[in-house]
C-alpha cells in the first residue's frame, strides 16, 4: 500500500485478501509462540534480559505512546484523512503535559496533553478538511510547526521555573501505578529460576501485573472503546463510511466534512495523550525531542494492524519491545536479536526460493541473513549508537514484510469537497 498518491506499480491485491482475523484464543496462541521463541533465544544466547519482566514492563510502557499515536492515526484514516502529523500532535501533547502537569498536577497534565494534541489536530483538520490541502503536505507542515512551537513555548515558559530549563520542564509528579502484590512477587521468584519457558512465561505474566501505570489502563480502555464505537455504533458506521466512500455517504445525508473534522480532532487528542504518557510516565519531565519519531512508528503500527485496533495493539507491543530492548539492555540484548534476525532472514530466503520461486528476492534475504549471522558471531555486543536504531530498523523490516496484504480504507487520502460526487 502507499500512503501517498504514487503506487509505483507495486502489485496490488485485487481480490479480497484473506483477512487475518484471529479469535482471542488464537491470539493467545500467537503470544505463547512468541514467548517460546524468546525463551529459546535466551537460552541460546545467554542474554537473560531478552524477556525479563523488567524489560517487558518497560516494553508495555513504551508500547503505550506508540499505541495511542497509532490509535489516533486509526481514527483519522478510518475517516479518510491521512495523518502524518501524529508526531507533531504528540510533541504538542508532551508540552501540554509538562505545562499543566507542573502547574496543576499530573492528572491535569493528562488533560493538558490531550488539549495540546487536539490543537494540532485542529490545525490539521482546518487545513485538510476545511481548505482541502493535501493531507501529507499538511501533516508534514504540522510536524515542522509543532516542533518549533514546542521549542519556543518551552523556552518561554520553562526556563525560568525551578528545575526547568530552555529545553525541559521541571520534574513532574508521578501518576499512580498498580501492582498485584502477591502474584507479582511469586512470579518474580519463578522468573529468577531461569527454567526454560516456564520462567519466561512467568516473566511475561509478571509484567502484566506489576507497576502498570493508570495511563496504560486508560489506553487499554480507549482501545476497547474505539473498537466498540467504530464498529458497533451509528456514529462509527458513519465515520467509517466517510473514509470508504464519501460520495455515497454524502448522498445518504451524512455530513462528510463534519465527521472528518471530528475524527482528526480525536486523532490529535489521542496522539497528544500518547505524548502525555511520554512526559508524565516514561520520563516524568517534558524534554525537547522526547517523542523520538514515535508518532511515525505509531503510524507504522496502524498499517501493520491493517487499520484495526487489535492488530494495532500487537504492532505497538512489538515496537515497544524493541524500544525497551535498546533502552535497557543496550548492546547485549540487541546483539541477541541479531541471531534471531539472521535465522528469520535465512528462513525467509529459503522459503522465497523453494515455495514461491522468487529466486532474486530469496537470495538477497539469504545473503543478508548470513551477513547478519556473521555479525552476531564475530561480535559480543552492538555499540549503543547502532542499537539505538533498533526500533526504526524493526519498523522498516515489519513494514517490508507485511505491506502486501493490507487493505486501507478505500477513500483514504482523498481530498473531499462538499457536493463533489455529482
Amino acid at each position, binding site marked *: 500500500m502507499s500512503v501517498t498518491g504514487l*503506487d509505483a*506499480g507495486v502489485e496490488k491485491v485485487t481480490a479480497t485478501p484473506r483477512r487475518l482475523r484471529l479469535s482471542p484464543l488464537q491470539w493467545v496462541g500467537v503470544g505463547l509462540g512468541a514467548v517460546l521463541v524468546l525463551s529459546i533465544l535466551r537460552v541460546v544466547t545467554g542474554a537473560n534480559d531478552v524477556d525479563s519482566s523488567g524489560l517487558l514492563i518497560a516494553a508495555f510502557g513504551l508500547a503505550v505512546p506508540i499505541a495511542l499515536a497509532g490509535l489516533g492515526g486509526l481514527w483519522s484514516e478510518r475517516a479518510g484523512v491521512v495523518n502524518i502529523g501524529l508526531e507533531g500532535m504528540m510533541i504538542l501533547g508532551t508540552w501540554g503535559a509538562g505545562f499543566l502537569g507542573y502547574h496543576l498536577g499530573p492528572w491535569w497534565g493528562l488533560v493538558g496533553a490531550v488539549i495540546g494534541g487536539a490543537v494540532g489536530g485542529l490545525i490539521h483538520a482546518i487545513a485538510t478538511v476545511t481548505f482541502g490541502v493535501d493531507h501529507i503536505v499538511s501533516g508534514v507542515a504540522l510536524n515542522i510547526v509543532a516542533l518549533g512551537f514546542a521549542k519556543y513555548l518551552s523556552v518561554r515558559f520553562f526556563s525560568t521555573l525551578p528545575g526547568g530549563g530552555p529545553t525541559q520542564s521541571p520534574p513532574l509528579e508521578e501518576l499512580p501505578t498498580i501492582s498485584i502484590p502477591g502474584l507479582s512477587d511469586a512470579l518474580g521468584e519463578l522468573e529468577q529460576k531461569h527454567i526454560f519457558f516456564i520462567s519466561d512465561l512467568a516473566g511475561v505474566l509478571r509484567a502484566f501485573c506489576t507497576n502498570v501505570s493508570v495511563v496504560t489502563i486508560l489506553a487499554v480502555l480507549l482501545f476497547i472503546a474505539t473498537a466498540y464505537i467504530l464498529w458497533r455504533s451509528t456514529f462509527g458506521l458513519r465515520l467509517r463510511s466517510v473514509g470508504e466512500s464519501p460520495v455515497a455517504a454524502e448522498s445518504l445525508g451524512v455530513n462528510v466534512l463534519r465527521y472528518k473534522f471530528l475524527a482528526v480532532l480525536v486523532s490529535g487528542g489521542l496522539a497528544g495523550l500518547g505524548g502525555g504518557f511520554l512526559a508524565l510516565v516514561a520520563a516524568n519531565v517534558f524534554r525537547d525531542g522526547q517523542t523520538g519519531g514515535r508518532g511515525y512508528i505509531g503510524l507504522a503500527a496502524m498499517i501493520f494492524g491493517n487499520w484495526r485496533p487489535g492488530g494495532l495493539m500487537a504492532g505497538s507491543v512489538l515496537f515497544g519491545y524493541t524500544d525497551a530492548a535498546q533502552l535497557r539492555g543496550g548492546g547485549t540484548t540487541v546483539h541477541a536479536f541479531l541471531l534471531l534476525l539472521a535465522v528469520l532472514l535465512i528462513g525467509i530466503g529459503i522459503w522465497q526460493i523453494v515455495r514461491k520461486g522468487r529466486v532474486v528476492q530469496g537470495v538477497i534475504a539469504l545473503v543478508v541473513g548470513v551477513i547478519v549471522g556473521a555479525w552476531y558471531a564475530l561480535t559480543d555486543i552492538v555499540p549503543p549508537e547502532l542499537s539505538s536504531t533498533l526500533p526504526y530498523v524493526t519498523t522498516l523490516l515489519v513494514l517490508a514484510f507485511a505491506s502486501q496484504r493490507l487493505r486501507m480504507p478505500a477513500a483514504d487520502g482523498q481530498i473531499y469537497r462538499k457536493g463533489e460526487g455529482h
Partner: protein
Amino acid sequence: MSTFSPRKLLLAVAAPVLALVVAFLVTSAILLLLGDPVVEVWQTILSWPKPRQLVQIVNGATVYYLSAVAVAVGFRMNLFNIGVDGQYRVAVFAGAAFAGQAWFPGPLNVLLTIVVAMVAGGLWASIAAYLKVRRGISEVISTIMLNAIATGVVQWLLLKVAVKQQGSNSISTKPIPESSQLDGLGLIPGATNKVYTLILLAVLVGALYWFVINKTRFGFDLRATGRSESAAVASGVKVPRMVVTTMIASGALAGLIGMPLLFGQDHSYGTTFQAGLGFAGIGIALLGRNHPLGIAAAALLWSFLDVQSNALQIRAGVASEVVFIIQGVILFAVVIAYELIRRADVRLEQQRVARELAATRSDASTPEGATA
C-alpha cells in the same frame, strides 16, 4: 507553464502576499496571547539588516536553497522525500571524512568531495526507493525511519574516525586542509564576513533544476507522474524506474546541502554541525511552490527571519525561538492560500472557457457541466 499573462502573475503573487498578511495577523495574535511584546518583536524582525547580517542571510539562504531543491524534485512527482535530513548528514559525514584525508590537492579535493557527498546521499536515498518500489512502503515513513537510523549510524561512524576538536569537548572528522577551504566571495560591501563561494553551486543547481524539470523529456515524465500517475503510466512512463531515479537524484542533491557549510565555515563534520536543515528545506519547498525562483525567495525569507531573530533576546526580551512560531504560521498560511488560489484559478478558467464558447457559437449544445 502557460503563457505569461497579467492574470497569471497576479494569482501567482496573490497567494504568498495574502498568506504573509494572514501570518502577520495570526502571529501577532499568538504573541499577544502569550503576553509577549508584539511591537518590539516586529520592530526587531523587520529592521533592515546590517551588512554583516546580510551576508549571514545570503549564506543561510544558500544552504536552505539546496535543501529545498532536493525536496522539490521529489515533490513535483508527488514523492515525499522527508529523508533529506538524514541524507544530508550521511553525505556531509562521508564528504568531510574524505576531504579531511586530503588525498587530492586543493580544488580537486573540493570537487571530488562534492561527488562523494552526492553519491553517499543518493545511496542512502536509494534504500527508501527500493523499499517503495519493491515492497510498497510509503516513502514518507521509510525516509523518516532512515533519518533516525542515519543519526545512529553516523554517530557510530563518527566515533570511529573521530578527532577531538581543539578547545572543546566535541568531536569531529579531521579538518580539511587550508588548500581546500573556500574563503568566500565579498559580494556585500561593508561586511567583514564573506558569502559562501558555493553559492555558485546553488545557482547552478537551481538552473539545472529549472532546465531538467521544464525542458527535458525526463522532466515532462516527472511532472506528468506528479499530476496524474494513471495518465503517466498510460503514456508510457515507467513509474517504478522514475521513483528510483527521482529519489536518488533527490538524495544526491541533498548531499550538497552540507557542502557550503563544510567548505566555507566548519571545515569538518562533528556533533555541532547544523542540524534540521532537511526539515527547513521541506517547509521552504512548500513555500516556494517547488519553483526555482519561488524557492529562492522563500529561502531568503526563512533565512532573514532566522538571522533577524537572533537579536530578539537583547532588543525585545523575547527568546529567539519565537521565530519558529512566525515561520510555522507563515508555512500553514501559505499552504492554505496556495490551495485556495489554485482552486479559484481552475474555476475561473472553466467559467471563462464556457463563456467564450457560448459566445462564439450561438446554438452550441449545453456543455456537460463540470468535467473534473
